[in-house]
């Protein structure tokens, strides 16, 4: 994960959205395409003013979110680190292209600043209701990485991580923020560029005539040269063979889909990111993400003062779901509390991996209001 190696850099007073911009530029993002939508527009506006001043940065406002995703995919094929940002309605429009991105294994980053839904919903209020859509929004079996961030500093770090994962695993990465995280202004440190590990997609070392763009490799991730570099190949959303040509051969179909799952599954332990706060001896643990994790952290501290052995598992990776982090809690923890601003989307996942070790309590709000520490504390103290 992208963690500042040393504490250096410049301090700024920034919105979560502005921290995303800083993170993207640090990670080497040089292409942004998007369409305005509250509460994500500050990311777009930040990129519009910053990218043209970089050596090769490109910003373009497209006619809709479908077009934005298309442009980002084109840029990725051309060798760029590319991103877009949106919110619920735009995220829905992007779904066909997200599946295409998975199928052609294009590294790219999509930030979804979640607002209340469904439909136009609550444009200016926070929610976390796109969690399952981020995992399963596009049609067909596919693997994808979904991350989240809970404060402004983390917005920066997780944006860098999102680009690193995208490049390393050749996949779309979705960063889910919520309106509160994106619109909170805090003092953060923008680290110097050399304080992060920045990853780039693997380049082919073989001559063009030996290159197979969708070949099996040890990591499951084939190298990806930019268009125009002499490695001419075919890219298609159709199920394809290792050369990229459409196939209907059962063995080739299975090989492609299995590799696309395996390239992420086999690095599960590198991908699952979560902060464990006071969990070592905790008997009751809150599992939270996004701005709700901040309420939870305060609630846990207050519960500890009252003698409740409470802890917090703050999820930074939402998918693949960090199940082994939960398993580690089992010896001492009997109860999990999952507060979230939806009708129960992450708690489904928690219940799915729970094989009876835990009782699961949920706290759900869908009224556009944040879940307060007091609400969580009440559930922590209920014995």
């Amino acid at each position, binding site marked *: 994960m992208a963690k500042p190696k040393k504490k250096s850099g410049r301090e700024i007073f920034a919105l979560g959205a502005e921290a995303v911009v800083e993170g993207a530029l640090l990670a080497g993002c040089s292409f942004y395409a998007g369409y305005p939508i509250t509460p994500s527009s500050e990311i777009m506006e930040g990129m519009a003013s910053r990218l043209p001043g970089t050596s090769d940065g490109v910003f373009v406002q497209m006619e809709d979110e479908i077009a934005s995703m298309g*442009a980002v995919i084109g840029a990725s094929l051309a060798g760029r680190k590319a991103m877009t940002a949106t919110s619920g309605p735009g995220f829905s429009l992007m779904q066909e292209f997200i599946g295409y991105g998975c199928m052609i294994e294009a590294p790219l980053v999509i930030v979804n600043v979640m607002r209340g839904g469904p439909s136009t919903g609550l444009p200016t209020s926070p929610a976390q209701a796109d969690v399952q859509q981020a995992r399963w929004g596009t049609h067909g079996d596919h693997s994808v990485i979904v991350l989240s961030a809970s404060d402004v500093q983390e917005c920066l770090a997780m944006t860098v991580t999102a680009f690193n994962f995208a490049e390393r695993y050749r996949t779309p990465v979705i960063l889910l923020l919520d309106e509160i995280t994106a619109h909170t202004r805090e003092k953060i440190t923008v680290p110097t560029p050399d304080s992060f590990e920045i990853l780039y997609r693997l380049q082919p070392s073989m001559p063009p005539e030996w290159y197979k763009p969708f070949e099996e490799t040890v990591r499951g991730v084939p190298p990806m040269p930019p268009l125009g570099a002499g490695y001419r190949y*075919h890219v298609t959303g159709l199920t394809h063979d290792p050369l990229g040509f459409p196939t209907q051969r059962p063995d080739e179909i299975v090989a492609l889909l299995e590799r696309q799952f395996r390239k992420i599954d086999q690095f599960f332990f590198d991908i699952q990111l979560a902060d464990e706060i006071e969990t070592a001896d905790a008997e009751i643990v809150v599992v939270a993400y996004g701005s709700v994790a901040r309420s939870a952290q305060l609630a846990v501290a207050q519960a500890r003062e009252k003698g409740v052995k409470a802890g917090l598992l703050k999820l930074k990776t939402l998918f693949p779901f960090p199940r082994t982090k939960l398993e580690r809690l089992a010896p001492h923890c009997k109860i999990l509390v999952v507060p979230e601003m939806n009708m129960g989307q992450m708690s489904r996942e928690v219940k799915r991996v729970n094989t009876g070790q835990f009782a699961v309590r949920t706290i759900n709000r869908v009224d556009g209001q944040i879940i307060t520490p007091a609400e969580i504390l009440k559930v922590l103290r209920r014995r």
Partner: protein
Amino acid sequence: MAERTQLIHHYLRHNKKFPHVYCAGCGHGIALGSLIRSVHALGWSKDEVVMVAGIGCSGRMAVYVDFNTVHAVHGRALTIATGIKLSNPNLKVIVVMGDGDALSIGGNHFIHAARRNIGLSVLVLNNNIYGMTGGQCSSTTPLGATTTTTPFGQMEKSFDLVELAAAAGANYVARASAFHAQGMDKLMQATFTHRGFSLLEVVSPCHTQYGRKNKFKTVVDMYRWLKESATPLEQYRKLSAEKAKGRIPLGVFVDRDEPSLEERYADLRADQTAQAGRR
């Protein structure tokens, strides 16, 4: 003949299993031939050419040619092409779409790409029908025509592709026909070398899905109709409204020389970095 064989071997993919999907008499294959001759005449290297194609019989073209090829999702080829061109303006980006792809599902992208004047060479192979999915009507199906989804005749008016592109702001707009292959070669080369958004509409007969159901007994009848109704634009403009009816004007409709988006963007970046240097 020998030269043609050489071209085929050079530009078509030897590692792609032929035969191709095109029906006998399909205009799309003729457009493919013209495309290869045009790239060859311009002396472009295969490495610098990117073909982005939509979904449909027309879009299948991308799999056969030995360029950098991207088979997009239905209607969105122009969006991917825009990302590619802005990322690397040195690439020659050719976009191939059907009429359904470019104007029905992709109509919004089409007008906006033209308005943006992004430097793409755009070929729309217009067969007035959805070929690949079995002959449903498209937004260029003529009034009254029979298709599998207009069994009682098309009730909606059709788009004129050339007028649409011109109004939306394309730098270059031309129309060719699959019957007039040499004329197509000339227009295609002009399309490929013109700055900004350059469109070539190719009138491309589909007897299988359109002609059969619309009073063309054979493929040959369709090409005869095309031969007889095609009229050079200069001549067409002199015809009375009555005489012009049913004729298909071919030629160059728009020839503007406005800077393309990627050129404007390069200027902006030079400006911004110079300012940053001064600060």
